[in-house]
């Protein structure tokens, strides 16, 4: 895929504190990329630099081969949907949607028909004359989207556009949003702190932490092959126990010794090679582990501390190997206090080894 929007080592410092550090990212034409991370990770600052509301201290923003870093936002031709929508309360629905078309200098009839089409697109036809305050939160969100899309922008930017909606509506709206954006083939950057939202929406997810880009990739890749501990724990659940590297990593798989005769194979990150004898933290997805009789080979023994009902299965919290693991199981037999054995289901899938720095404790 051709890179349509390119961020080249963007850096933005606020009062001595870097909000975004050397961030580079490429977004392909018609691609939806989500900037995902906890609050304060720099994702909104990044989006605002793309939009032109923040000027990077260094680095470039390139669109379709053209450097727009110094260009004011109104010249960029990007559509943006704001967290609180920022609909103009003194203008009607039609006037809001027409705003960008008027600045583009289109004729009256053309504007009218394009407003109509934009409202059809967000499934709110006939609301032209309504005042924005008379609309529900979900409708306002769609009007904000219609307004951003009406001038046919080069890039669509969305800043946590669903955070104001309630949970049920949020889930429905994000599916609609994806199919709508895909239908018109819009290059999109979407900011969110909600992992599920990112999974549902994005072609690729960029995970940010403290202003740094940890990993970029499709949701599945991030989930199955996280590059950092942060990505592993931020996307999906993972328990952790301490271990040491046994033998040399081979094909990205490393043997981790967890006890006297317990060795589990785990996926090792490509970026930071592990050496023999290195202290590691072994992270395990709940669905990658299973209960087993304690005399079976490579069983890690522990004690159940919590049992959680999760619909079609149960999640057990097991205190073992100086850490805490989560085990997903269909059975409800174990209960808190029980001694259990834990084994990987299909190692190394769902098991990740990361170097443990000297100061770190053994626990998760």
């Amino acid at each position: 895929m051709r890179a349509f929007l390119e961020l080249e080592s963007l850096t933005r410092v606020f009062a001595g504190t870097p909000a975004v550090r050397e961030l580079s990212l490429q977004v392909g034409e018609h691609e939806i990329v989500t900037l995902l991370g906890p609050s304060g990770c720099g994702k909104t600052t990044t989006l605002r630099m793309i939009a032109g509301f923040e000027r990077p201290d260094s680095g470039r923003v390139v669109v379709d081969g053209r450097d727009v870093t110094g260009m004011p936002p109104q010249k960029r031709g990007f559509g943006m949907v704001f967290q609180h929508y920022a609909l103009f309360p003194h203008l009607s629905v039609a006037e809001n949607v027409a705003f960008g078309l008027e600045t583009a200098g289109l004729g009256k009839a053309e504007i009218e028909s394009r407003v109509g089409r934009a409202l059809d697109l967000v499934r709110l036809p006939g609301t032209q004359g309504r005042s924005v305050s008379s609309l529900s939160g979900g409708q306002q969100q769609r009007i904000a989207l219609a307004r951003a899309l009406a001038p046919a922008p080069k890039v669509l930017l969305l800043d946590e556009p669903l955070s104001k909606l309630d949970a049920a509506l949020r889930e429905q709206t994000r599916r609609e949003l994806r199919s709508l954006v895909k239908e018109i083939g819009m290059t999109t950057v979407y900011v969110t702190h909600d992992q599920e939202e990112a999974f549902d929406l994005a072609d690729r997810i960029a995970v940010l932490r403290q202003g740094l880009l940890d990993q970029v990739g499709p949701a599945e890749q991030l989930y199955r092959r996280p590059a950092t501990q942060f990505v592993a724990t931020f996307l999906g659940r993972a328990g952790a126990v301490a271990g040491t590297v046994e033998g040399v990593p081979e094909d990205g798989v490393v043997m981790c010794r967890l006890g006297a005769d317990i060795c589990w194979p785990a996926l090792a990150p490509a970026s930071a090679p592990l050496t023999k004898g290195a202290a590691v933290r072994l992270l395990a997805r709940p669905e990658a582990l299973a209960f087993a009789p304690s005399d079976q080979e490579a069983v890690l023994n522990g004690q159940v501390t919590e049992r959680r009902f999760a619909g079609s299965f149960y999640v057990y919290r097991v205190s073992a190997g100086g850490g805490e693991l989560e085990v997903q199981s269909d059975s409800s037999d174990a209960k808190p206090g029980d001694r259990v054995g834990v084994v990987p289901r299909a190692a190394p899938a769902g098991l990740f080894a990361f170097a443990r720095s000297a100061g770190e404790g053994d626990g998760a």
Partner: protein
Amino acid sequence: MSGGRGHQRMAWRGRLLVAAVFAILLWAVVYPNLTVIAESFRADGTITLRHYVQVFSTPSELRALWSSIWISAATVLLSALIGVPLALLFARFEFPGRRVLGALAAMPVLLPPLVGVIAILFLYGESGVATRLLQSFLGLQSPPWRLQGASAILAVHAYSMYVYFYLFALAGLARLDPAMFEAAASLGAGNARTLTRVVLPMLTPSLAGAALLTFMTSMASFSAPYVLGGGFRVMTTQIFNSKLQGEVAMAMVETVMLATVSLLVLWPLARWEGSREYVAPSKGTSAMRVPVRSLWARVAVPLAAGVGVLVLVLPHLTLLLVSFVRDGTWTTQTLPPAYTLENYRELFAETHTFRPIFNSLLMAAVATLAALALALAAGQLIVRWRVRGRRLLEGLLALPWALPGTVVAIALATTFSAHQPWAARWVLVGTPWILILAYTLRTLPLTGRAALAGYRQLDPSLEEAAASLGAGPWRTLRRVTIPRLLPAIAAGASLAFVTGLGEFVASIVLYTHRTRPISIEILSQLRDFDLGAAAAYGVLLMVLVAAAFILGQRWVQSGSA
């Protein structure tokens, strides 16, 4: 993540605007005052303390300063005694007519001080309606009192400045958590104990603010001492007289003294304004107002409120009455014997009688526009661009508020009576421009405050949304910023216009026959004993003020919908 919002690299047009706003404000607000200070130290081309020595060694000068201070302190006390109980009455009890009476009680805040003074004169003056009624009732040979000197000034001050205490106390009470009252009651406290141990202590910040504002207004008061003072002088009238008698250097020193005292008072006031205490933590669960229950209270509370408010608006009703009096018919009778619409017809009948109305409307309108434009530009600089020196800018907007009108007028008259273009001084004295400049300065704090509040409430993402839709700075300003600021603009503009319409204190220093505003005309009609005409002008002013205010309110509401 909004920490870095704001300007980054400013275009030259932006820099030009910043420079222009700073230059205009420094030129209009600071420069004239510096001129006065410089003049107060100058004699025969040298720098000297001679004028200060002279002022401080003249007993009448010190007496005037002392009079200003004690009159102001007494005004604070009297105003509190009227305003606070009134506020408690309207805030705590529900009774028929509460809303109307409550609004009426706040009315004097809008009325030009001079109109208040002559209204009181018509009611309680030596030949006032109330005075004559009492005189004939008691069968006295001479009026029971003379409305003159310190006591008269105090009476007028209390009459017009209780409003500050009333409004501040009401606002303070509205911020209190009504559950406080219920908590006090559940702990066994009666009404008196709740008042002294809970309500009044919690109102302290509001009342302190009202006290300082009242003190400053009283220090700056000119109308009452000028019309009713007689031989009793305060600083403002002392300055005016020094100027009138050509003792320019003395006037400069007195102006500096008055400005200094006022600024010393402003300082704690500004600090107080920063700290808003006792904000209600919970919302709207308990009712603030209790309906009055006992039969006794059901009669007494509305009666007290009604009588109280009637007494407070009686002067203005009297003004209305006098405006219908046929010229020359009211001599010794208690109430005027003959009524006519002639006084009003004459206002508009001839060029020379209509002139002051035209002048006031035009000059107030131009000044309002200027003050509004300056305030909006400053608001953009302070809130949006967060320019360096924004605190100074905010101070410049507020400074004329702390300076008595007399000080502003003297400073302008001193500065703009010389033609020195190289020093940014031109002869404006004798032209309408000096009055417009004075009105602009006096209304700048009002528009400034409104513009800043408006900008601070404005969601910055609206402007960003406009930019993301391709709108440039001008289009964003026109289509988004200004429409969203309309309520603030309307509120600021109506207050500013109202202030300009009734302006008297600076006008009396700066007017000429051609540029005389309504307030000056009222005074000269009064001097000619044409009471009907003076009253008609006064009523017209009241009506214009009310119209401007109501229009502004409408606009505020329509804009915020």
